[in-house]
Every structure is written in C-alpha cells, then in structure tokens.
C-alpha cells in the first residue's frame, strides 16, 4: 500500500519536474553542431609570419607595415629609426570564405608581390572534431631594383617565392600558438655555393592580456640558411657570416576595424623572403628595429 502511495507521489513529482525542465528538454533535443574556433589571432600576421586568420568573405583589407632603423644606427639622430624606415603596403581581398588574394609593394629592393592564402582546415569541436586550423600561404616576389652594372639579366632572376603552411591552435581563449613550415626560394643567389631553397620552421605564440591587447612572440629558425660576406675591418681579410633567424616580440592592439601591432624585431626587410632568409640583423649586436603593422578592413560585399 505504502509502495503505491510512493509511486503516486513519484509520478506527481515527475510531472512537476517535467514542467520545470523545459530547458533541459531543449538542450537534450538540440541538434549536434560543429563549433568552429574563431579569432585564434587578432590579425592576419603575427609580426613577420602569417597567421591562420584571413579577412571574412567580401572583405577588403589594407595593411601598412613599417620597420624603423636599428637601435645601433644613430638611433636618436635618426628620430628613433623613423628616418631609415622600410615600408611595405598590401591590399588583399577575400572572394571566398576560404580564399584571400592580394598584392603588395615593399621598399626594400623595390619589390612587388602577389600572394594567396587558403584555408585547408578549421579547428572545431562537436560533431566534427579538428584539433588545428591549417592554412596555406603562397607568394611570389619581383625585386625591381635597378642594377647599375650594365649586365643583361633575365627578369626571372629577380623572382623569389615563399610558401608557408600555418598549423595553428587556439588552446584557451587567451593562448594561441602555431608552427609554420616555411619554404623560401630565390631564383638567383649570390654564389654557386648558396642554397636557392631554404627551409625554415616558424614558431609563434600569443597571450591575450586583455580583450583588446595581446603579447606575441615569433621565431623563424632556418635549417639550411645562407651566408653573406662581411668586409674585413682594418685591412683584415673579408669573412662571411650566417644570415640571422628572425626573432620578434610584439603587442597587438585591437580597435574595432583596425589591428595595430607594435613590436621589436631583428629583421628590417619586411617582405617574407628577406625577413626569413636574408636577414643580417642580430639581437645580440643590437640590430633591433621598432616596427608596426596596421590593418584596416572594409566590408565590400555584405553578408545579407
């Protein structure tokens, strides 16, 4: 008898619970969805490396990149390096959600370039699980600087190429990192002993200190880097020195449609081939450059 009463009460309470738990019911019946990671980085570049981010479909982006003169080159006289700044400008557009294409110009060697960035995978969880975002970046550079030696040159010798495979992961809302196998190819190098194709492995990480600010670090060690000649001082014989690996530390500041990136780097060439494989700046010798990347986006094609 008591058992039956108990059942009755149970049934009643079940009924009441059913009313209260509409929300639980909704949560239980909601469709399994794939949740894609977004905003792994604030900008499309860390400092010199690309990130897996690209502007949304129908968005035009221009960036202005500056690398000031070095700390050890009459720094104050040159207005903190500003007077010796190297500049790069780019304009890119995303015709598709997964594709971004652009053009750039760099002051160093008067270089023109064209590039494409393409998304291969996106980090996601839920129905579809993907631990990393993988994005490809390919670009071709034409060094247009005049030669004053009167020799006839094939224009193809002015070309260089960079390919980056960006493997990025957002570990927490604040911490992201990426490894970037990078291949740099020069059609023409200084001596027959130099490598035309240089392999490097980019490493980068960021830590967000506030919602709008992040600290970034980037290092791009080369596996088979070339050397450059150094004239001997005081009559000594000329020697050669290895090109440096690019190391940069910076800060991202986001303000609506802009991302400002302020940093210190040992690479002044701005364009990828010169930064990754022809960098003569050394941290230890004080060849450090203030620099900034500024991006601005414009929505050309609205989503709806």
């Amino acid at each position, binding site marked *: 008898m008591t058992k039956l009463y108990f059942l009755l009460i149970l049934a009643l309470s079940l009924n009441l619970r059913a009313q209260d738990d509409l929300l639980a019911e909704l*949560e239980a019946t909601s469709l399994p969805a794939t949740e894609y990671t977004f905003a792994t980085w604030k900008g499309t570049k860390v400092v010199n490396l690309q990130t897996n981010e690209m502007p949304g479909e129908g*968005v035009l982006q221009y960036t202005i990149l500056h690398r000031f003169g070095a700390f050890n080159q009459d720094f104050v006289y040159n207005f903190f390096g500003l007077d010796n700044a190297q500049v790069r400008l780019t304009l890119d557009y995303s015709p598709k959600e997964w594709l971004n294409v652009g053009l750039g110009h760099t002051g160093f060697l008067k270089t023109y370039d064209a590039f494409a960035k393409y998304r291969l995978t996106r980090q996601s969880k839920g129905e579809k699980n993907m631990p990393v975002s993988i994005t490809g970046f390919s670009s071709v550079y034409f060094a247009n600087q005049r030669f004053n030696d009167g020799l006839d040159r094939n224009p193809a010798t002015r070309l260089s190429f960079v390919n980056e495979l960006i493997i990025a992961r957002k570990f927490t*809302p604040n911490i992201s990192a990426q490894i970037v196998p990078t291949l740099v190819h020069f059609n023409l190098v200084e001596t027959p002993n130099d490598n035309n194709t240089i392999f490097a492995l980019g490493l980068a990480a960021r830590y967000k200190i506030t919602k709008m600010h992040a600290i970034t670090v980037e290092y791009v060690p080369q596996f088979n880097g070339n050397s450059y000649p150094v004239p001997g001082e005081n009559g000594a014989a000329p020697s050669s020195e290895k090109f440096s690996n690019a190391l940069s530390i910076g800060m991202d500041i986001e303000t609506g449609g802009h991302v400002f990136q302020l940093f210190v780097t040992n690479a002044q060439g701005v364009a990828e081939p010169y930064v990754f494989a022809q960098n003569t700046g050394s941290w230890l010798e004080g060849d450090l450059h203030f620099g900034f990347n500024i991006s601005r986006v414009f*929505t050309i094609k*609205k989503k709806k």
Partner: protein
Amino acid sequence: MKKTLFISLGLVFSLAVSAQKLSTRSAEVSFFSATPVENIDATNQQVSSILNLDNGQFAFLVPIKAFQFEKALMQEHFNENYMESGQFPTAKFTGEIANYKKISLDKDGRYTLVLAGTMTMHGVSKEIKQEVRITVKNGKLSLKSDFNILASDYGVEIPATKADNISNSLAVKVSATYD
C-alpha cells in the same frame, strides 16, 4: 482502495503524457544597436523554444555563435570581446506566460499577454517582465515580443572608446512559430 489508487496513478501519468507542449527549432531572435556613428543589426535563426500550454511555461535556448552580422569582423568581436561565447555559448530565457489559459488552439485569435521570466546570458541572470503578442492561426501558435535590454546588466562592458559605435541599450525582437 487499491483500485482508486491505480486510477489516480494512471490519471497522473496520463496528465504528464497529455501535456500540450509546442516546440520549434527555428525561432528567431534579433537585436539592434543604434548610435549616430553606426547601426549594428544581428539575427539568430537557430533559436529553439518550447511552450507548454498546460501551465504557461516556456523556455528559449539561444546559441550565441549563431548570431549573423552584416560584417564578419563585427561577428568576431561580438563573440570574442563582448559575449565571450567560448565561455558562455548559450543564452537562456525561461518563465511563464500569465493568463495562458486564455489561449485556445481551436480557433484563430490574437492575445496580448504578459510573460515573466529569467534571462541568462554572459553568465548573468536577470528577471524580465514583458508584453508578448500571441497569434493562433489554423491551429498554429506564433509569438512575438519586443523589448530593450542593457548590455551592462549582463556584465557586457562596452569600452569608452567604442561607446560611439555600440549602444548599451539593445532593442531585442523575439519571434517564434511553433510546430
């Protein structure tokens, strides 16, 4: 005695079964922020809702990442900087419609009633009491409600430098047609 108990037990269970629950997975929630500098408009069509006509209780579940903006960057900032949707992926709204007994699915009609409930988003819960317009047509019930909320009530801070672009007061529109 035993018989009565069985009957009442059966009655209770059958009540539970006959509960008149309406549901939808394609309810819509939109919000609008107006400032002299720019207007921001976002719509979410992946809202799910249940309405129980036996007791007037309702629930809405809003996946934050499903809000669609005109500009991709706005959507990213909304999720990353304001709603922190990685941490707070859904907004919830549960409560009761007063005088729900007036609603009849058997004939076409319009009702303006009051709903009261709790809205939870960005980890903050707040009581809301609002007018709701309910329409019954051909046995289908649809619901609409417009109200304003303050972002600051839900711990969503708009920095001073963005105050010209983003309004703290947001006009929210909810509409649902139940299956």
